[in-house]
């Protein structure tokens, strides 16, 4: 029953690859389509999208690409005019295999293809080295999901992101672990990627500041499936919480192996593990673990429900994780082009920092570094095979009053112990 969806996705991907290849060489990037354009010149705008489409994170990568694709298809359907010309957007979907080396290779390819802008990459480890190339080429880059703080700290004018970074997330997680969950002895595992290590380091700082002791610091990789050895070691240290910095493909099996080893300690992890896939992989061992996601829950996003339905209708699969963010990232870029009245990177780059866009995820505005302002972070607990939102910390008030009385935006609450939210702990 799953096959049609996958085949569909694959067919789409291969079509894309074909069309990408076909168009690579001949036409200059702004070739006029002569067909039925009486007066208005037509312009093709190439928007690059980079994420791992093969390898252990391929499911997340495809999800990101789908989000951006949806935004671009909608923009095309609207027949936008920018600077007096009818624009058609074209998505150049590239695969970086979550590998920093491959990331720079495809970044160079997009630059050579004269992409007008880039959505991506998915991982911090690939986004950071690629951002240097985009900056040198003057191509604006909006990452939907790279959360390592370093990405926007390099001083590149072209680097933006629409998601709260690890510093904010690690801080919130660490504060939550020590204050709300009352953890005193914490074990930390990370997967040695820029993302996993980054969020684990920030968590450690915040947890230590909150009075916890780090009893073990263990490591794995983003390709591992066997964690018995490190978990056994952690078991001997008797922590009351285990923090994992990494992705769902490891967090899920790790939860299972915890259970198999008879360890009842719960895990807490950041957005990489906060997926529906986690429940699938962890099975009945998923209960009671915690995670955080930048932004507010999909149901509580201003346009969450509508987006979910649109997405399911178009791609015939459920949203994995970051699709709403890549959708917003693409829309932010298109919005900047419209406001600037130009699709030239140099021109609309001026308009990007002044973004104030009501996206699916939130109202998106950027600070001076290119980070999304007031990024909200929501904590979840696994219950009955689903992530249930516990509370949202920080974040701008959602626009349009779409939250309707839910506690989504307990706005302004700093990551300090909110006295109110202390009931569901044990």
């Amino acid at each position, binding site marked *: 029953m799953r096959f049609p969806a996958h085949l569909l996705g694959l067919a789409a991907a291969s079509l894309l690859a074909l069309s990408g290849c076909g168009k690579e060489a001949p036409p200059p990037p702004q070739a006029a389509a002569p067909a039925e354009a009486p007066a208005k010149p037509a312009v093709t705008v190439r928007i690059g999208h980079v994420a791992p489409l093969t390898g252990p994170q*391929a499911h997340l990568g495809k999800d990101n690409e789908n989000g951006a694709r949806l935004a671009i298809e909608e923009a095309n359907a609207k027949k936008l005019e920018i600077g007096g010309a009818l624009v058609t957007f074209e998505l150049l979907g590239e695969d970086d295999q979550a590998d920093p080396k491959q990331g720079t290779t495809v970044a160079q390819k997009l630059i050579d293809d004269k992409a007008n802008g880039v959505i991506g990459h998915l991982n911090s480890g690939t986004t950071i080295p690629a951002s240097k190339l985009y900056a040198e080429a003057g191509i604006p880059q909006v990452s939907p999901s790279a959360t390592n703080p370093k990405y926007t700290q390099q001083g590149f004018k072209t680097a933006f992101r629409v998601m709260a970074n690890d510093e904010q997330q690690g801080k919130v997680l660490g504060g939550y672990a020590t204050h709300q969950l009352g953890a005193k002895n914490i074990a930390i595992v990370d997967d040695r990627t820029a993302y996993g290590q980054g969020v684990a380091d920030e968590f450690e700082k915040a947890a230590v500041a909150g009075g916890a002791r780090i009893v073990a610091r263990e490591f794995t990789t983003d390709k591992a499936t066997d964690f018995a050895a490190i978990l056994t070691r952690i078991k001997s240290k008797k922590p009351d919480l285990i923090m994992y910095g990494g992705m769902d493909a490891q967090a899920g099996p790790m939860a299972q192996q915890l259970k198999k080893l008879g360890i009842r300690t719960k895990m807490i992890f950041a957005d990489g593990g906060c997926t529906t896939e986690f429940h699938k992989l962890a099975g009945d061992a998923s209960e009671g673990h915690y995670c955080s996601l930048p932004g507010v829950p999909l149901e509580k996003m201003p346009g969450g429900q509508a987006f979910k339905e649109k997405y399911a209708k178009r791609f015939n699969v459920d949203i994995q994780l970051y699709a709403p963010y890549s959708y917003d990232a693409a829309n932010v870029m298109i919005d900047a082009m419209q406001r600037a009245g130009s699709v030239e990177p140099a021109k609309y780059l001026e308009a990007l920092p002044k973004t104030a866009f009501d996206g699916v995820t939130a109202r998106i505005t950027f600070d001076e570094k290119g980070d999304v302002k007031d990024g909200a972070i929501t904590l979840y607990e696994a219950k009955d095979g689903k992530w249930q939102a516990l509370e949202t910390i920080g974040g701008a008030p959602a626009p349009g009053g779409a939250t309707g009385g839910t506690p989504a935006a307990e706005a302004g609450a700093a990551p300090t112990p909110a006295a109110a939210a202390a009931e569901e702990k044990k």
Partner: protein
Amino acid sequence: MDTFIQQIINGLVLGSIYALVALGYTLVYGILGLINFAHGEVVMIGALSALTVIKLLAGSGLPGIAVVAIGVLVAVPLCMALGYGIERVAYRPLRQAPRLAPLITAIGMSIVLQQLAMIFWGRNYHSFPPILPETGREIGDAYISDLQIAILLLAAAIMAGLMLLINRTRLGRAMRATAENPQIAGLMGVNINAIISATFLIGSALAAVAGVMVSANYSIAHYQMGFILGLKAFTAAVLGGIGNVPGAMLGGLLLGLIESLGAGYIGDLTGGFLGSHYQDVFAFFVLILVLVFRPSGLMGEKVAERA
């Protein structure tokens, strides 16, 4: 102490899976002098095809063990056919070619199989349905699940059976003869092609079983799972002496134990200076040490000309 016992159990389970996969490498190397880099992919296809069957039958009301057994029974012939096909397509036409050529086709085969699996099974992770009983035993404070006991026993039984096959049957004798010198064995009336095919069939059957074990034990299967597993198993085969069947078993178990104990104790031994991310470094360091002192592996014999 309990932690130590637990690490030994972890290592043995991991090691016996490595050993089963390593046998596939070593059998083929012993006979053809070829490293079948597509072997890890056979493991992956075994795991995913068994999982497909198991998922189909999971709701049928059959007992979990029977469902898994049916999954294995489907995966084994499928992988045997696959192994046979790989040999016919990628290796047999190149048997007289320079050594590098079949090595390249092996890597090519591995990539092709991975992509085919990605098309067929998709990019997502597949989880193993919770149909096996989750009972287990406590040894002190250490814990071993019945599934892990079953993996250990089954792996031991298969290896014992393989040793019998190689040392006590006509087929085994023909395999040993072919390994020693294919031309002479051919002159003595051994059908070389049939023996080589049989070797691939046996290796692939072991791979299928190992694939199911991995996916059952770690509850996860993915089209790329074969790569790292294959690499580790290949390392195990080299550690034990590639081409040597008991060597592959010993190498597999040792590698599993080294990884497990390495991850568990490096941190304590070095006062926190090195952590569990040095687990692979540690494993390969042991491999280098062994190869320095015993270049043909722990149990490898010095064979003139070949190997």
